[in-house]
C-alpha cells in the first residue's frame, strides 16, 4: 500500500458500529519488545541502529508478509507524512520526531502498526473500533507469537519483557481505551471519574497521549502498571472500569436531556451552525464543535447527519491531514481557511 493512499483512507478506529461506539471510539493494545543481546534504542550507535532496523524489517516482513503489511522508512519521510501518521495514531510523536534509522510497518486495514527503533526496539499495536479489549489483545498476542518465531526477545523470568523504561517492564503491555465524554465534562463530573480511575492504577490522557490536552472531550484510559499482573488481569481491570464510565456518561446525557434540554440543544445547534458556516476555523475549535455535534447525533437531537462523516472529521481536520488533502504545505492561517471549507464540503453545505 502506498503512503498517500493510506493517509487518505478511512481510519478503522473511527468506524462507527463498534461495540459501545457512541461513547467508546477505540481500543488499543500495545506491546513493547526488545531484541536480546543489543542495547536499548537510545544507546545504539548509528550503524547498530541501522543494522537493527534491517533485522527488524526482515523479521516483520517474513513473519507477517501474508497480512499485506507494508514497511515505511521514517528517516527520509516528509515531515507532513509523519505528522499524518501521528494523527492516525499509527506512530508515536517521539518516533516521528526522532533521528536516524527507524521505521513502521502498517497493515492494509491500518489495524496493526509495528514501530521499529522507538524507545523500545519494537512497539506493536493493534487498534479496534469501539470497546473490544479481548479481541485487540488476542490479535496483538498472536502477532507477537509470529514475530517471536523470527526474533529473540530480551526477557527475564523474574521481570518479564525487558524494556528501556521500567514503567513498561513485565508484560510490556499498555491497553488503552479512547472515550468521548462530553456530558461528564459538561456536568463537571469528569474530575471525579479521573480520581476513581487513578486509584485503580489506571492513567488518563488526552487525545494524543501523554501531556496532551483532552480536546474534543476525548480521553484515553490505560493501565499504568505492567508488572506483577497478567495481561488477562490488566484487561479485566479495564474491562470492569470502562463500562462504568460509559454508564456515567449515559446518565449524564440523560440528566442534560431532562434538566436542561434547551441549553443542550442550543450548544449542539450552535456548534452545527458554526461548523457549517465558518469561513476560517482552528483545529482546536473544530474538535470542540465536533464533540457537541457528535453528542447531538448520538442523542438523536441532531438528525440527518451521518455519524461516520462526523467521526472522520475528527481526524481529517487535523493540521497534517488538512495539508495532505490540499496537497501542499499551508501556513496556519491558510489551514484554518482550508479546514472550514473542507468541513462545509463534507457536511454538504458548501
Amino acid at each position, binding site marked *: 500500500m502506498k503512503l498517500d493512499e493510506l493517509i487518505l483512507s478511512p481510519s478503522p478506529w473511527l468506524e462507527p458500529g463498534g461495540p459501545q461506539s457512541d461513547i467508546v471510539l477505540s481500543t488499543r493494545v500495545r506491546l513493547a519488545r*526488545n531484541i*536480546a*543481546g*543489543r*542495547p*536499548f534504542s*537510545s*544507546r545504539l*550507535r548509528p*550503524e*547498530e541502529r541501522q543494522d537493527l532496523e534491517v533485522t527488524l524489517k526482515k523479521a516483520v516482513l517474513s513473519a507477517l508478509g501474508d497480512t499485506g503489511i507494508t514497511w515505511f522508512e521514517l528517516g527520509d519521510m516528509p515531515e507532513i507524512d509523519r505528522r499524518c501518521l501521528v494523527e492516525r495514531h499509527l506512530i508515536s510523536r517521539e518516533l516521528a520526531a526522532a533521528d536516524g534509522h527507524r521505521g513502521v510497518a502498517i497493515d492494509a486495514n491500518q489495524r496493526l502498526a509495528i514501530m521499529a527503533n522507538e*524507545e523500545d526496539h519494537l512497539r506493536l499495536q493493534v487498534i479496534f473500533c469501539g470497546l473490544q479489549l479481548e479481541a485487540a489483545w488476542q490479535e496483538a*498476542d498472536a502477532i*507477537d*507469537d509470529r514475530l*517471536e*518465531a523470527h526474533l*529473540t*526477545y*530480551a*526477557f*527475564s*523470568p*523474574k*521481570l*518479564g*519483557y*525487558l524494556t*528501556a*523504561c*521500567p*514503567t513498561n*517492564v*513485565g*508484560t510490556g*503491555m499498555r491497553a488503552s481505551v479512547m472515550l468521548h465524554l462530553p456530558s461528564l465534562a459538561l456536568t463537571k463530573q469528569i474530575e471525579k471519574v479521573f480520581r476513581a480511575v487513578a486509584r485503580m*492504577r489506571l*492513567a488518563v490522557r488526552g487525545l494524543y497521549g*501523554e*501531556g496532551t490536552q483532552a480536546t474534543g472531550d476525548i480521553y484515553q484510559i490505560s493501565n*499504568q*502498571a*505492567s*508488572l*506483577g*499482573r*497478567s*495481561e488477562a*488481569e490488566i484487561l479485566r481491570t479495564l474491562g470492569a472500569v470502562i463500562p462504568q464510565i460509559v454508564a456515567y456518561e449515559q446518565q449524564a446525557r440523560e440528566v442534560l436531556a431532562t434538566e436542561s434540554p434547551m441549553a443542550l440543544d442550543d450548544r449542539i445547534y450552535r456548534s452545527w451552525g458554526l461548523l457549517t458556516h465558518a469561513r476560517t476555523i482552528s483545529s482546536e475549535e473544530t474538535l470542540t464543535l465536533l464533540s457537541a455535534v457528535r453528542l447531538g447525533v448520538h442523542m438523536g437531537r441532531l438528525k440527518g447527519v451521518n455519524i461516520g462523516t462526523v467521526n472522520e472529521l475528527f481526524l481529517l481536520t487535523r493540521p497534517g491531514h488538512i495539508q495532505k488533502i490540499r496537497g501542499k504545505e499551508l501556513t496556519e492561517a491558510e489551514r484554518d481557511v482550508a479546514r472550514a471549507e473542507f468541513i462545509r464540503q463534507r457536511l454538504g453545505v458548501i
Partner: protein
Amino acid sequence: MLCQRCKKQPATIHLTEILQNEKRERHLCEDCAKEEGVAIKAQINLQDVLSGMVEAHQSASSEANLTCPDCGITYAEFRNGGRLGCPHDYDVFAEPLREVLEKVHGATEHLGKLPHRAGSDMTSQRELMQLRRQLQEAVETEQYEEAARLRDLIRHKESAGEA
C-alpha cells in the same frame, strides 16, 4: 506572560474561574498558585519519582555510581534520563530498581506471558551484546579477519538460541 500576582516569574498556571456567573481568567506562576492554594494536578512522572527516591538514598549509598559493564550507563544517568541502556541494567541496578518498580507497579515480579522460544537466558544475551560490540570495533579498526570470525560466532550463537 508574567504572573499576575507577583509580576516577576512567568505564568505557567492558567485558571478560568466562574464566580456568580462571571468568568475570570487568571495567570499565575507556580509559587503564587501554591500560596493561593491552587491544587496542581500532577501526572505520575517517573523522573520525579526517581529523583525523589534517589535523594532519599544518596546519603546511604553510592548507587548513583553503579555502572553497567555492558552498555556503560550509570545509575545517575538513568535517573536523569529515565531510560535504561540495555537489558543487563535490570541486573546491575537490581537493588535501587526494586524500589522504583514497587512504586510504579506495586509489584516486582512478572506474572504475564512467557516467550515460547529458548535463548532467553541472560548470560547468552549478554555475551551476544559484547560480541556485537567487538565486531563493530573490529570493523572500525579494519581488522577484517577478526570481524569475519566474530560475525560467524554471532550467527552461530543466534541460531543456537533459536533452536
